């Protein structure tokens, strides 16, 4: 019984890492430009579909990866240039609506280019339990999940270094802190926004490949974004560590609730449980775990 509990817990934590990966894309853009980018899920879908489509056309794994990365970066830059720049200074809700419109557009474009069939994505990692762990401790942990968690960790560490050690990273943080002050010290705002969108495209590619390999590349990938939202409110919109910790908490509690609580209420509670959890949490800490505490004045 106890080993089953740990198995569920570890499975939940590992799938939580996957949520964090998607949430990361949201946080990057929200931090830098205050835009709540609902299209992140569609970007994930678009990236996975483009990668699969390219490999189907005979490109090797590496070439397809580089090509998809290039496509995602161009797409990010285009979004910044064509959608967000004309909407600068509009109320946040307008920007949010624009990203919902954008998500429709990207979903349509992706399926127009590559078709709507469900495809498999092979990364060469087996989705099977690690043998010695199940032998020794009696706990089944998927090798794939572990690798995915590792990739996520590398990505987060890389982004962390990028933000704290490089010139562009520091400029990004300055922009996130205060647009006007950043402009005043000579940081090119639009260029920074372009970079952020390109990075978000890259994160979407990584998330898309992992999720695609897990669940197949299909339209349902766009709903991954809906899974990432409670992670965001739990962790705070502006915080990268928040996205990680929030993802772990959501992933673990969601799986535990589904397995141990679900049977009593008819199952299927995975869909709303994270939201209610995040909601209850918000009542205690309205700015999330790591969100910035805003002091309001008249």
């Amino acid at each position, binding site marked *: 019984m106890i080993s089953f509990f740990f198995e569920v817990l570890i499975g939940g934590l590992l799938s939580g890492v996957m949520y964090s990966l998607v949430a990361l894309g949201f946080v990057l853009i929200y931090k830098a430009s205050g835009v*709540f980018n609902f299209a992140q899920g569609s970007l994930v879908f678009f990236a996975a579909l483009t990668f699969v489509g390219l490999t189907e056309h005979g490109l090797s794994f590496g070439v397809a990866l580089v090509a998809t990365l290039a496509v995602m970066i161009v797409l990010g830059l285009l979004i910044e240039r064509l*959608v967000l720049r*004309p*909407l600068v200074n*509009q*109320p*946040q*809700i*307008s920007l*949010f*609506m*624009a990203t*919902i*419109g*954008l*998500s*429709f*557009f*990207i*979903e*349509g*474009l992706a*399926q*127009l280019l590559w*078709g*709507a069939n469900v495809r498999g994505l092979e990364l060469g990692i087996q989705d099977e339990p690690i043998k010695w762990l199940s032998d020794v401790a009696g706990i089944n942990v998927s090798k794939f999940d572990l690798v995915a968690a590792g990739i996520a960790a590398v990505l987060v560490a890389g982004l962390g270094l990028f933000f704290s050690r490089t010139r562009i990273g520091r400029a990004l943080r300055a922009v996130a802190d205060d647009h006007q002050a950043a402009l005043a010290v000579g940081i090119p705002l639009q260029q920074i926004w372009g970079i952020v969108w390109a990075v978000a495209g890259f994160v979407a590619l990584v998330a898309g490949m992992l999720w695609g390999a897990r669940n197949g590349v299909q339209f349902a990938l766009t709903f991954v974004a*809906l899974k990432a*939202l*409670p992670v*965001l*409110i739990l962790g705070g*919109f502006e915080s990268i560590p928040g996205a990680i910790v929030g993802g772990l908490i959501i992933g673990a509690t969601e799986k535990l609730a589904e397995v141990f609580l679900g049977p009593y*209420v*008819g199952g*299927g*509670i995975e*869909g*709303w449980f994270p*939201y*209610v959890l*995040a*909601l209850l949490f*918000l*009542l205690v800490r*309205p*700015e*999330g775990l790591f969100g910035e505490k805003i002091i*309001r*004045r*008249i």
Partner: protein
Amino acid sequence: MLYREAGQFKSTYAADAAILPIRQDRIGLALILVVAFVVIPLTATPYLFSAILIPCLILALAALGLNILTGYAGQLSLGTAAFMAVGAFASYNFVLRMPGIPLLLAFAGGGVMAAAVGILFGLPSLRIRGFYLAVATLAAQFFILWFLTKVGWVTNYNSSGVITAQPMVIAGFAFDSPQEKYLLVLSIVTLMALAAKNMTRANIGRQWMAIRDMDVAAEVIGIRPVRAKLLAFAVSSFYCGVAGALYAYAYLGTVEPEAYSLDLSFRILFMIIIGGIGTILGAFLGSAFIVVMPIVLTIVVHFLDDTLHLNVASSVASNLELMVFGGLIIFFLIVEPHGLARIWQITKEKLRLWPFPH
């Protein structure tokens, strides 16, 4: 020349506080009402009624509800469709379990149930704001739909979780044909739009707007935020609930909880953004736009297909529609961020001076 208020003097306070202070506006609205109540029922085809006019009006009512909450009280909500679902399923159960209950009372009961649920999910708004609140309202969306699917009692233990709306009979008169349904929906929507207009002009509407613009300042001048916010949630959900009941009874007939998905919530949000946030007119313009646009797109694609012999596959066509829909929304937001209602306002200003430039 035609649209000018010069020479129209007001000599009473009542005249000064009229909803439409300008005579031309009154005539215009009267004309619209005559067309809506008399001309359209006599001339329109059943297809027009059931595919465009009825959904247009019902969704306008829901948009009106969301506009009260988001446009006037400033609380962003993504759970509109769930509140509509509550209204629909509650009305169904009222009619089912209380034989002889007047239908309109059942609709109102559905609205009240939705309002109660709305207050419950509005409670977090006292602590959180902005996008945190928006995501929190998603909890309502997912939880309510799950509840309606899982609890057999609300669907009268139908094996597929579907309810079939009872025939609409009011005072012995059955509203069966699309025409009759249209008139019923139109009457309800007209009355509720009038009520909404008056609410937003009155004390409570000003409280909402004060809360929206700056809640701390509103509190300082003596507005109770708890009461104002929860009232906004209640009134908004009531409107959504009635709209949801009409959606089931007058439009779909047979409904499953999935009809009130997140997608519908988004569509209603689009309506108020494109129509004009914080305006009554905007709810109607936006609803017309969102309902009619996909139909026009389909017709255009089919027309091009037929004339140019492109042999567009239907999947390609539907993806193209999706892209155009998304693109148009972005386009509208960029060109007119204040919505269609603003365009009408600018037109009025221009008309007032026409034919002179200043």
